[in-house]
């Protein structure tokens, strides 16, 4: 079983606030791994550290054996640093989000970020742009028509697979919420990722839609040979779908394991429900 993503002692500190505190986790090939935790636990921050939107204060991220991000507190941060892990000297490696996407990590966003005024088709087509062999000159004078045609065919095929083909000329922002989520996932798939990060894919969905999403995630994992790492609040979905679960609270990892293990973990119950009367006996 190969290691796809490895986060090592990731610490993200904003000023004096430690949002993620020494988080280490790994995601293996073909797994569906969930990251859960109460609001404000630092889940999305952890995602942003992986995708290069934030530069972690300390720690290292490896993707398919290659270190894509690595940092150690520098300058003013050396004094401010209050993370639990004692910082060692790590080389500084930083990549912008677009480079990380090219390497094969795609993501969706908690509050859907589609290209609102563009059509469904164009939304997906843009994701194909970065892998196409072309330049601005060849594109302007249509010397890239073969590349363009191939991009369009691939986009159409993807939309058909995702059952969005009949909506291809709709403006993205006019779609209902559930379809916008589907489109965002389709767009992420169009970047040809190896690892897909889903940030609360079931947010705002009703039980039926959530059930559909469960099947959908399984289906895309199998048909695109993906590894999936997701943040989710819907416990039904998480428990049903995940191979392993990491639980985060106040930026720290408090539990990990299979859904059954996590469900019965006292610290997890505490973090979610507060200390119960039974536990105090």
């Amino acid at each position, binding site marked *: 079983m190969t290691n796809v993503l490895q986060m090592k002692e990731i610490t993200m500190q904003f000023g004096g606030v430690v949002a993620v505190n020494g988080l280490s986790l790994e995601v293996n090939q073909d797994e569906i791994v969930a990251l859960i935790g109460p609001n404000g636990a630092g889940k999305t921050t952890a995602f942003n550290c992986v995708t290069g939107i934030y530069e972690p204060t300390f720690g290292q991220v490896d993707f398919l054996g290659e270190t894509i991000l690595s940092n150690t507190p520098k300058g003013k941060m050396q004094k401010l640093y209050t993370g639990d892990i004692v910082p060692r000297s790590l080389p500084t490696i930083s990549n912008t989000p677009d480079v990380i996407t090219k390497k094969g990590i795609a993501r969706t966003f908690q509050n859907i970020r589609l290209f*609102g005024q563009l059509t469904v088709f164009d939304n997906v087509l*843009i994701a194909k*742009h970065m892998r196409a062999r072309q330049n601005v000159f060849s594109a302007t004078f*249509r010397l890239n028509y073969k590349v363009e045609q191939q991009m369009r065919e691939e986009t159409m095929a993807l939309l058909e697979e995702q059952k969005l083909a009949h909506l291809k000329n709709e403006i993205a922002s006019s779609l209902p919420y559930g379809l916008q989520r589907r489109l965002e996932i389709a767009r992420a798939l169009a970047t040809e990722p190896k690892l897909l990060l889903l940030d609360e894919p079931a947010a705002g969905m009703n039980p039926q839609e959530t059930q559909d999403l469960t099947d959908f995630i399984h289906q895309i994992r199998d048909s695109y040979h993906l590894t999936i790492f997701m943040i989710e609040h819907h416990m039904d979905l998480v428990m049903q779908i995940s191979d392993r679960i990491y639980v985060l609270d106040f930026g720290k990892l408090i539990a990990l394991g299979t859904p059954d293990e996590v469900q019965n973990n006292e610290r997890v119950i505490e973090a979610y429900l507060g200390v119960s009367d039974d536990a105090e006996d």
Partner: protein
Amino acid sequence: MKKNKIYTLLALLAAIGLLAFLQANRSEYSYQISILERSAIYAVVAVSMNLLTGFTGLFSLGQAGFMAIGAYVVAILTIPVENRASVYYVDGISPAIANLSCPFWLALILAGVVAAGIAALIGIPVLRLKSDYLAIATLGFSEIIRAVISAPQLNQITNGSYGLKNIPGFPNLFVAFGLCALCILVMVLLINSSYGRAFKALREDEIAAQAMGLNLFRYKQLAFVISSFFTGVGGGLLAMFMRSIDSKTFSITLTYDILLIVVLGGIGSVTGSVLGAFLVTAGREWLRFFDSPLTIGGFQVPLFRSGFRMVVFSILLMVVVLFYSRGIMGSNEFSWDGLGRLIKGIPARFRKGNAQKGDHTS
């Protein structure tokens, strides 16, 4: 589909016919020709500004500066060598450029290239800014460019504040309008290409665009450089049209004129910008009678005097912006089907209006 192509062809033929007619009667219609030429040149610059503001979402106000660069490059390279002594009568001409001369088409390309090169340099610091801050920074750079051009230290190159004259004009109308049409055509091709799509993605959501593998800075820089290239060419065309230029031609008000055209035409619409360019430029001229004294039955209307034209023009603009807040075209493009719908819609609108009136009375 086929019908629309025929319409387009007919419109094109009509335009060429009109040009041929104007070309044949050049001296008779010189006033109309000059309005049309200025409109066409403004249309080029407006479309290039729209490429940046409307399609890439970068609000830049540096147009006048890049036009100045283009205009001066064309002027320096095309003023006939034998006339240069009389143009640079104050401090003489720098020997480096005294015999430097090239045909106007090459000068226009160089005008674009120089403007694009300077844009690339300015872009490195400036494009890290967003929205209003970017506008202010580019406005500042535009003024710096103008100040540098008019600096007395550069008298031997730009002739400082004395300006440059004797710039050869367009050989004929077809060249003038053909060049403008070519520039706009290339920009339209770019906007509809895969790069144009990437620019639009950037406009819609920078973070999502980055997550789709687009290098933010590279694409912003690309849009800025390409837009500046065509602004530079537009400046060069303006120099050929005006035949004499000085640094005051390229003050902030020129940028505002272009901005006005873009907003009036519709941010994000190429045809809107072209339409806006012709309307704004011609509109100023149509309103000229407000500037001359008006006497009705022996009574001289007091408001009609020089300058009143611009007051009326401003009021008209405010009306347009209030009632068509997204500009004439919004972010739509012209299409024959759209025009057909508009024409067919007019009787229906009248009927609706009458019906409503009827309701009120009953």
